[in-house]
């Protein structure tokens, strides 16, 4: 197990390093971007004097490395900001304050997270059902027409950009059939029924995109297992087919599916930019596009770090799950 712990620690350290490098690169990138964040924050009709005041207020007057040092300082120990009459404390890990509205980035991210989480979790359930279902079906109908049709469908679903699927689904279900409302994000806490109803289309679009991988995974691992000796033995002993598949064959497919799900979920948590943009879901991905456009550096850096964190976390979880399934991975 110590070997495993050392492996995990090394992975973690490498991940932190990558995140650090990322944040530096983003700082440098925004430094050369045209456009003045102070001007953007102040509004177009601000006088030069006002813009200068705002620049000082946001700490944009300092050289970029000093700004970055401030950011790191805030991240590790927190920071205090003047509200005019008093100060506001932003506790560690403080990602700073939005240039646009002065809110703490951490609370901005927290506001956006539920929408993204709703999208990601719901889509995952759906893509697991769709993916494993079709995979199972095509493995059982191995060599038949069903398999070929399913293979083509999953190939198409995986290849086509999500905004195409989304628009086509919208055209069909909202415009032509009128079965679903025009998607509008409703928080789960406001109205669970509306929440689900309005997320059906985004969930379905993402699930169609993702399920192909799961379908293939299920199919191939099922075919492999079914061909193995012990399964043949079970069959020979007269164990019923359903039991063979349920108890034995499918079991082999479960660990990689879970691992892959963890990984996909991690990426989804970073925000499904296109899906959120298409359906107007106020999540992390939409926020990313918006904040890059307004050059709201603290929000962008916060989003990238949090996104990166989710991916790293998902990778770690996936690795652990793999390790559990296959010891050789850790040792390799």
């Amino acid at each position, binding site marked *: 197990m110590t070997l495993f712990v050392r492996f995990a620690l090394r992975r973690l350290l490498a991940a932190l390093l990558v995140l650090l490098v*990322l944040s530096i690169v983003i700082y440098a990138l925004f430094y050369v971007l045209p456009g003045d964040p102070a001007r953007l924050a102040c509004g177009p009709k601000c006088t030069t004097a006002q813009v200068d005041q705002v620049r000082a207020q946001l700490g944009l007057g300092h050289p970029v490395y000093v700004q970055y040092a401030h950011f790191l300082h805030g991240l590790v120990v927190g920071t205090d900001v003047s509200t005019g009459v008093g100060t506001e404390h932003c506790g560690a890990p403080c990602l700073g304050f939005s240039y646009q509205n002065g809110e703490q980035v951490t609370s901005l991210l927290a506001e956006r997270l539920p929408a993204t989480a709703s999208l990601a979790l719901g889509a995952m359930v759906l893509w697991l059902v769709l993916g494993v279902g079709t995979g199972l079906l095509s493995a059982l109908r191995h060599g038949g027409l069903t398999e070929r049709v399913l293979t083509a469908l999953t190939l198409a679903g995986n290849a*086509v950009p999500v905004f195409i699927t989304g628009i086509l689904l919208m055209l069909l279900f909202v415009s032509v059939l009128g079965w679903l409302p025009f998607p509008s994000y409703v928080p789960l806490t406001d109205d669970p029924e509306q929440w689900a109803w309005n997320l059906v289309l985004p969930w379905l679009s993402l699930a169609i995109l993702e399920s192909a991988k799961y379908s293939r995974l299920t199919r191939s691992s099922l075919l492999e297992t079914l061909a193995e000796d012990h399964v043949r033995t079970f069959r020979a002993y007269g164990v019923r087919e359903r039991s063979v598949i349920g108890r034995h064959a499918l079991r082999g497919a479960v660990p990689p599916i879970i691992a892959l799900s963890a*990984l*996909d979920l991690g990426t989804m948590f970073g925000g499904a*930019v296109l899906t959120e943009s298409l359906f107007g879901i106020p999540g992390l991905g939409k926020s990313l*596009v918006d904040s890059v456009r307004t050059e709201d550096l603290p929000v962008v850096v916060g989003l*990238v770090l949090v996104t*990166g964190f989710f991916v790293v976390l998902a*990778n770690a979880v996936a690795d652990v799950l793999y390790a559990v399934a296959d010891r050789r991975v850790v040792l390799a």
Partner: protein
Amino acid sequence: MTATDPLTAPGAVAATPAAAPGARQVWRRLRARRAALAGACVIVLLALMALAAPLLAALEGQDPDAYHADAVDSALGGVPIGSFGGIGADHWLGVEPGTGRDLFVRLVYGARISLGVGLAATAVQVIIGIGVGLAAGLGNRLLDTLLSRTTDVMLALPSLVFAIALLAIVPAGFPRPVLLVLVLGLLGWGGTSRIVRAQTLTLKSLDYVAAARLGGSGRWRVARRELLPSLAAPVATYTALLVPSNIASEAGLSFLGIGVKPPTPSWGQMLSSATTWYQADPTYVLLPAGLIFVTVFAFTTLGDGIRTALDPRAASRVPGRARRRKEARA
């Protein structure tokens, strides 16, 4: 960061280079797959359409940038006059709402951007990827570590943030399609580099390569004479699947409004302005959406076919762990 691109994972690529089949054999296998052939035919048609764009425009007698105020109903928000988005003898596929620009010509010209950017970006990715991968695989330990870590960072980059930012930094005078190629290319070589490095490391230890080195061939000569040919199969497999992904990325960037600039027509851009019209003018939505669908699907089918032809066993293998850079997809 051990998580890999699904395509770079072991299952996707022929593990033993010795098994790499000859070109003739590949062609025979490919020809046997009807789906792949159909994909190839569609691609040829699309390519012809893109190349013949001015000709087709002349045939219809329309200009991609010309406004037609008489083809839309101004008081009704600029909805095209006539059924199915104004389809008729003058405008074969109808007109764009608001502007009245001819959709057929714009779609045909849009093919140039989609295919051109998709293919060129793939080329950039593959060239950089092979270069970096070979250098890492053949170089000393320090170089390998440096390049491998850089590849890690490239794969971890939130490509969209960088794409948006890079597209904003570069002066507006810079030709936009070229910029898109560079942005997609420079951000997307990580996968290829990984495969090439892994492949090179495997090959290096193989007898015939070792023999060549013992025989006095220099490191780069070995790379050129012995390694590159053996890399062809896995790289080709990967490339075939990179193309549709790049085409989809271009469409995605254009969809988010950061692709090519107007008046240059692009499918993704048309689709993004079409989304608001999905009720009032569904034809306008269906055309670019359908074309992107068909193009990406055709390339994927062909890519899948090539993969199977190069290594039939790979197709049935577990497709390994998932990719990292999915942001631009979802």
